[in-house]
């Protein structure tokens, strides 16, 4: 090495480098300590004053009729709204809303996972700030958590006559929203038996999931509430009242099936591919996926077990501190008009929570109206169960047990 080479000169000694490096580390450490803890110290207080739909202060004499705002921000999952057949970026329902109320809906398909979406708005909610959204759509258990944390606005049902009139009874009085005014169901799905009837014949019982004759040919779901829920139903337990003891019984049953080699894998939506390729013959399955899978492979079938099935729902909620609460209520109510609900349903393959939509669809889209996966008949609806809203500690317990039985320690 030439002595002119700067690296050969004692400019950076090992010692000075280490000192500088450790100083940087200490600084970062101190900075990081300050951000620890995400405690929700906010107690749910009244509606922020700025909210459009808030009842005015006690002094105001006659209640002025609230007006709809110029814009509304709605976060939803993909394929959850009807689109214009000629232009997939246009949403007829939202355009009709604009015509009627003058509100431009900023509709964004930004949700593809409950946890990660909540992560994007959690800091604002913790500090009682506006999240930027007026309507968000969350699955039952996450909706339950958000309500438990006091992060959802109480809706004024007086502004929502269509919801009151048309919401199906099975969705009412869930344990986690006893007053029915913090969430409104958007779309639902059923969890039941998805199978290849060419290989298995027609199936009706949840007991098939635990039958050694399908050894290595059965997928269970990674979604804890579905797999534990169906197992509880098989055992004659009620998932809408699940306790830790019930959880233990279900876990023991799942473990038995796993140890016997019946369960091939725990899967998310990928079970549908396994059914299509013939890798498995039976899986715990979601009705919405199966509508599509049936088209690709007609020998597939979906059945709600005779012991029962799970009903899960994605729900509209108004996050705490939303700027346009009143308009959000009007928007949700607008979608509960049976005509609008039918229009949405014709573009979406899930279960419609609206009582009147099927009648409207029968006239102009009988295929959708008669599809039992979209409009399940009353005897099936009666067999469906919504998983109990778990407390944080119980949720942790259930998740922990389920992780262990699915091989995740």
């Amino acid at each position, binding site marked *: 090495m030439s002595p002119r080479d700067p690296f050969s000169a004692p400019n950076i000694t090992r010692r000075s480098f280490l000192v500088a490096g450790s100083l940087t580390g200490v600084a970062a*450490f101190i900075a990081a*300590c300050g951000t620890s803890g995400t405690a929700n110290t906010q107690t749910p207080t009244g509606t922020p004053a700025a909210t459009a739909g808030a009842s005015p202060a006690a002094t105001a004499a006659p209640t002025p009729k609230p007006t709809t705002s110029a814009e509304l921000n709605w976060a939803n999952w993909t394929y959850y709204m009807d689109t214009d057949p000629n232009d997939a970026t246009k949403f007829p329902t939202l355009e009709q809303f604009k015509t009627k109320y003058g509100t431009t809906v900023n509709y964004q398909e930004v949700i593809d996972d409950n946890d990660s979406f909540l992560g994007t708005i959690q800091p604002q909610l913790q500090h009682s700030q506006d999240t930027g959204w007026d309507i968000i759509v969350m699955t039952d258990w996450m909706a339950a958590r958000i309500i438990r944390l006091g992060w959802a606005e109480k809706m004024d049902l007086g502004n929502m006559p269509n919801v009151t009139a048309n919401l199906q009874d099975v969705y009412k009085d869930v344990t986690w929203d006893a007053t029915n005014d913090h969430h409104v169901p958007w779309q639902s799905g059923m969890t039941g038996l998805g199978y290849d009837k060419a290989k298995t014949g027609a199936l009706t019982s949840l007991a098939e999931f635990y039958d050694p004759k399908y050894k*290595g040919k059965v997928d269970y779901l990674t979604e804890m509430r579905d797999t534990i829920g169906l197992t509880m139903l098989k055992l004659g337990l009620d998932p809408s009242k699940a306790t830790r003891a019930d959880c233990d019984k279900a876990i023991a049953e799942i473990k038995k099936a796993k140890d016997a080699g019946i369960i*091939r*894998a725990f899967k998310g939506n990928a079970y549908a591919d396994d059914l299509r390729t013939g890798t498995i013959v039976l899986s715990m399955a979601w009705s919405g996926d199966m509508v599509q899978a049936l088209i690709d492979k007609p020998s597939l079938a979906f059945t709600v077990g005779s012991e029962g099935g799970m009903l899960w729902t994605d729900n509209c909620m108004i996050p705490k501190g939303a700027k346009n609460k009143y308009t959000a209520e009007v928007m949700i109510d607008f979608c509960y008009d049976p005509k609008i609900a039918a229009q949405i349903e014709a573009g979406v393959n899930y279960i419609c929570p609206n009582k009147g939509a099927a009648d409207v669809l029968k006239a102009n889209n009988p295929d959708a109206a008669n599809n039992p996966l979209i409009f399940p008949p009353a005897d099936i609806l009666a067999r469906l169960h919504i998983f109990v809203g778990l407390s*944080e500690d119980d949720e942790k317990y259930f998740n922990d047990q389920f992780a262990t039985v699915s091989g995740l*320690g």
Partner: protein
Amino acid sequence: MGAFLRRHRGLTPYLLLAPGLLWLAVFYLGPSVQMAVSSFWSGSLEKGYVFSFANVTNYTKALTRFEPQFLRSILYGGAATILTFLIAYPLAYAIAFRGGRFRNLLLFLVIAPFFTSFLLRTLSWKIILGDVGPFLGPLKAIHLLPDDFRLLATPIAVVSGITYNFLPFMTLPIYVSLEKIDFRLIEAAQDLYANRFGAFQRVTFPLSLPGVFAGSLLTFIPAVGDYVNAELLGNPDTTMIGNVIQNQFLTQNNYPTASALSFLLMAGILIAVVVYARLLGTEELTAGGA
């Protein structure tokens, strides 16, 4: 700038180091410190987290509870590393010494799979190894294999998937170290009555060790932490530590345990690498650069 540098010559190395150090400080050191802090938390997402050094039990509990997944990860990662070595060495050797004018084309083919996504490549293994797929289907049809035989959802599938996905990481460093070997050294060995195998054993292979070392680190380290192969090709009894960390972070929101697991994984890999470096002999590793 030039005049400034001439006057303050001592600054040059720092300036050269600055972009890399800054990058690492922001994207490696920062998150690592954050993770180190959260590994000493107790509490929950909803009730808030409290920092305390007493929570060092997060580490001991995690190690006890997830020991099977840790051991399995090291085992699968190690098996995949050995397999990639056995496949990659002859491949790199052939390209380096027998590639001729096709050398560049062959090298391109080695890295060509990287032009598609990791996920897609792994998913395609599901089709290839499928129970009634193009490989097992015909064998079952002629009753060479029983009907319930399967490769998917077995450890074989997981290790094969990892081996396939990391093959280029082993091939390229070995190729580089073989390619720069001065062929006259091998000729000299032959002049000294070494047969072909002897020349390989005493000259070629030792000179290629830096490549083998680099390649096995590039394979082993990410392979141990991999969770995609186990998730897509495995079963509930083949879960690796990466799957556990993913579940703890994303499903259970258990940041303390997940962070502790990540550090334990880092420590485990570090120990394995140090042992490996000792076994191989550190002076061998720098010899190739002379």
